[in-house]
């Protein structure tokens, strides 16, 4: 870098010094920007943890909200509700997502595969509130809210995530494995189900977990589909249920500091879940990719 040291002179020319200064300035700006991003992450997680952890208690996890004016109470119904909504949504999205990925990577003619990929990308780019309104118009108008309708909305959000993640893993499966199976006389469908899919199961799983982490924090699709809920724990997906993100949304808009404390505690639960799952699945994905590639 510093080869050009001002025409054999031992002192740097003014121009070179300015160039070096500009270089230094830009490098420090880039470093500052990266540090700032990490600092914001630490700041957000820190304030959620600091305010949220203190409000956690046994009651918080096992009881439903206290009636107005009384202290205590918990969010058991929101926890169960989120579990039901996200679990059901995952069950809807994952099989279809895997099938789409299989089509794109194993069966589709190139042009059609590109088109399918485009559809997935566009679906992924849609604002989640629009998906909420779509499901509202399709399923809620006339028959009311229900947990499974929220699941359906979340499934639409998860679908492109699962499909793209799966498809990327399928692309990593060595062609020699497929050729080996075909050369042994296996048919295409047996090759796909017996060789390609089992090889990529780890990657598909981590991709799914990432999609779950994303879906668990989505609020907008649930506003229209499962928000008006009774204050009781219910596992029935035909009933509207409360969910963690929606509860945070409502509590954060409230003027009561006690509500804010509960919102922080819920935020802490949600952010812990999301960060732990996405971190571990990311790590597993990296390791898995290395194994397939190397």
């Amino acid at each position, binding site marked *: *870098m510093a080869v050009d040291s001002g025409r054999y002179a031992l002192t740097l020319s003014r121009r070179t010094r300015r*160039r070096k200064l*500009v270089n230094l300035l*830009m*490098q420090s700006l*880039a*470093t*500052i920007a*990266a540090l700032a*991003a*990490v600092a*914001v*992450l630490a700041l*957000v997680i820190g304030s959620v943890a600091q305010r949220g952890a203190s409000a956690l208690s046994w009651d918080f996890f096992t009881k439903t909200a206290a009636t107005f004016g009384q202290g205590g109470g918990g969010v058991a119904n929101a926890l169960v509700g989120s579990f039901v909504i996200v679990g059901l949504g995952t069950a809807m999205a994952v099989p279809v997502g895997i*099938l*789409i990925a*299989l*089509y*794109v990577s*194993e*069966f*589709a003619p190139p042009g059609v595969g590109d088109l399918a990929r485009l559809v*997935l*990308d*566009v*679906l992924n*780019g*849609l*604002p*989640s*509130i*629009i*998906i909420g309104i*779509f499901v509202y*118009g*399709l399923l809620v108008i006339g028959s009311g809210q229900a947990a499974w309708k929220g699941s359906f909305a979340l499934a639409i959000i998860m*679908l492109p995530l699962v*499909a793209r993640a799966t498809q990327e893993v399928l692309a990593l499966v060595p062609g020699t494995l497929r050729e080996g*199976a075909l050369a042994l006389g296996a*048919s*295409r*469908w*047996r090759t*796909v189900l*017996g*060789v390609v899919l089992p090889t990529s199961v780890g990657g598909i799983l981590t991709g799914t977990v990432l999609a779950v982490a994303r879906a668990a924090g*989505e*609020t*907008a699709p649930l*506003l229209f589909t499962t928000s008006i809920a009774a204050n009781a724990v219910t596992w029935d997906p035909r009933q509207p249920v409360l969910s963690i993100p929606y509860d*945070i*949304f409502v509590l*954060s808009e409230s003027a009561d500091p006690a509500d804010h404390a509960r919102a922080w505690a819920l935020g802490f639960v*949600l*952010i812990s879940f*999301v*960060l732990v799952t*996405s*971190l571990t699945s*990311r790590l597993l994905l990296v390791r898995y990719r290395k194994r397939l590639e190397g």
Partner: protein
Amino acid sequence: MSARVSAVPSTHPLPERRRIGDRFGDLFLHGLTGAAAAAAAVLLGAIAWKIFQLAWPAITKFGFAFVTRQGWDTIHSKFGALDLIWGTALTSFVALLIATPVSIAIGLYLSELAPRGARTVIASLVELLAAIPSVVLGLWGILVLGPFVGTDLEPWLHRHLGFIPLFGGSPENAGMLVAILVLTIMIVPITSSICRELFLGVPTELEQGAIALGATRWEMVRGVILPYTRTGVSAAVLLGFGRAIGEAIAVTQVIGAGHGIHWSLFVTGDTLASKLAEQYQGAVSNIQIASLVYLAAILLVISLLVNLTALSIVRRFSHERTGES
């Protein structure tokens, strides 16, 4: 592995039944996966169709003038989207204005400067920022960032830059500026991770060539990396824009549900998406619901345009690159 298949002795012809089974299996799996892919396309079409169907009463009643009319009068059922389009445009553009240079800088740091060992760690930390649910970011925005903006940042900006209309007006804890900052935090991880990958994709020969000619690192960045990745970076910025205009929850939490069109960043406002999130339960008349979905239709059209443009740029870019190598 399919042990049964490999165990078939090669001297014997396969039984006829199996071959038919295989042919049927191939066809079935092909059909099934194809149907799933087709379902995704149908779903996309259905979303657009349903949104426009729900909005149709408002579209026929207000026509295109809806877009240029101000005010959201629920009592007289007179609705217009101009305030909200203004709010959406102002918040997203200013957020992009901040996020773009920051994202490029982070991308450059991660691809060129960061020490090798820290590189992946910092990159995944930045990506974790994108994993924070928007509702949690909104909670933080309303209770931590908002008060800071209202009592420290805005008075400071007003004192020093008050002559610019953007920084006029009296400071508030909720408003455009808080929304802009929250949106910036949401966009930066997305754009910066795309930028990083683009920068890493620049051929090393070009970079080394510039360095060998005596360029400083920054001159190499300005002369080689940025021109080489310009189209890709613009696509990344567009994708960030698509994310910013569609964000409903966090913006609703911090923007303060104001109305009117103001140049000041300090005042409360509303965006297309936040209006939808606010009024989801309060809608009383059918025409109000239809008008709300009209907002969603506008949002849908804009976000489709933005995303398709960005995706086509990305596609063209990757084709060019694979063509070159």
